[in-house]
């Protein structure tokens, strides 16, 4: 079914159209959000396959929960919350199944063959630094820095107060600074 909306339509307009049965709007939403979510999940999970699965699951849940979307509300925090819930669920199940963290740690960061070594190393460095953060801090950095969400929205997504989010962010940035910036100064 071709959508009456074009690429200039807002996320919310597309979602409204999708709720009204416009399948093409779902495709447009996927094209907009899947790359963002893929980057998010790759950074969190460090597994290409898992990241893809979580992104698909997120959209599957968006599809299933579409009737809960309130017209007039923002779509981005809605989708992000679903994705973050799935990431957390994944870690919890992983822990429950007693799969050693070693398996996760030894997984290489997602890499593209065609990338220069230096860029790949940078990516690896970033992944390693983020991995040293507790999950609660990592998800705040992910949403605040990488996804450019304001603290109020991050708080809504992770289900805590804005104050708590600011504290987590402050601690996370301090740790990252120590890991990423001090290391360069040390080299110099």
């Amino acid at each position, binding site marked *: 079914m071709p959508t009456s909306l074009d690429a200039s339509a807002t996320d919310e307009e597309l979602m409204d159209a999708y709720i009204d049965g416009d399948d093409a709007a779902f495709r447009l939403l996927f094209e907009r959000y899947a790359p963002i979510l893929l980057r998010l999940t790759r950074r969190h999970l460090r597994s290409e396959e898992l990241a893809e699965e979580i992104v698909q699951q997120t959209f599957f849940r968006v599809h299933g929960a579409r009737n809960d979307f309130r017209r007039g509300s923002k779509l981005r925090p809605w989708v992000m919350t*679903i994705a973050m819930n799935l990431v957390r669920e994944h870690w919890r*199940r992983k822990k429950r199944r007693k799969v050693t963290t070693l398996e996760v740690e030894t997984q290489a960061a997602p890499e593209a063959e065609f990338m220069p070594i230096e860029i790949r190393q940078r990516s690896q460095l*970033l992944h390693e630094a983020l991995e040293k953060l507790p999950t609660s801090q990592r998800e705040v950095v992910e949403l605040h820095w990488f996804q450019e969400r304001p603290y109020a929205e991050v708080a809504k997504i992770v289900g805590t107060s804005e104050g708590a989010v600011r504290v987590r962010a402050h601690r996370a940035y301090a740790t990252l600074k120590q890991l990423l910036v001090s290391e360069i100064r040390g080299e110099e």
Partner: protein
Amino acid sequence: MTSGEDIAGPDPGLGERLRELEAGEFPADGALMDRMFSELKTECEKSDKSLIGYLRSRSTMARRAIILIVFTGLGVFALLKLPMVEESMRDTSWVGTLIAFLVLLVVAMMVVTRPVHRPELPRWQIVCLVCFAVGATVIAAFIPGSSAHAATHQHASGVMAGICMGFGILLGIPVYAVLRLVDRGNAFGSLVAAAAAGLAGNLLLKAHCAIDTTSHVLLGHASVAVLFVVGLGLVHRLIPSK
């Protein structure tokens, strides 16, 4: 990357470094997006064709209404087909216990049907809810009942406890089933649904069973909640869902 007044984020040095490192993240290509979307579309279509998919894609209000209809149906069935306890037994503690079970059952139902776009509840809250649910059924066994009735039902307590347990489990199964049918996959949904099933069984037994001795309530009533939670908990631990 982040901009605006909201930033009390990383200092410029770290910001610059993060930007530099993030450049190493590779973008998603079109072919990958196409494949992912096509797989997703297949899953969505498959789900839309199934009853479970249909029920789960209803709005949260609708899903809760479905549960309430099923609960009401079960309640009416129990009211019409099973005799209520004698009026002399319907004291304050009896009413209080029923209300406590009912409140916990409603809370469990709300947790199971919690919309997936809301942040999931902390694990400790879920654990507390399940403990309260099972704990309430155990505590109910120690609430002193009518001594006159206790004296008249001393015989064959093991058999009576078995019958009560059977009834409780029979009622709990449809409650568990309906909760799972509308559960969109919340964390610990199965465990909370199991606790709700145990509570529903206990609610029915409390309303209809005239034996209120501690041993009978423990063996015949509270065991229903324990069996549901422990049994289904083990099943899900051994056979993890996809």
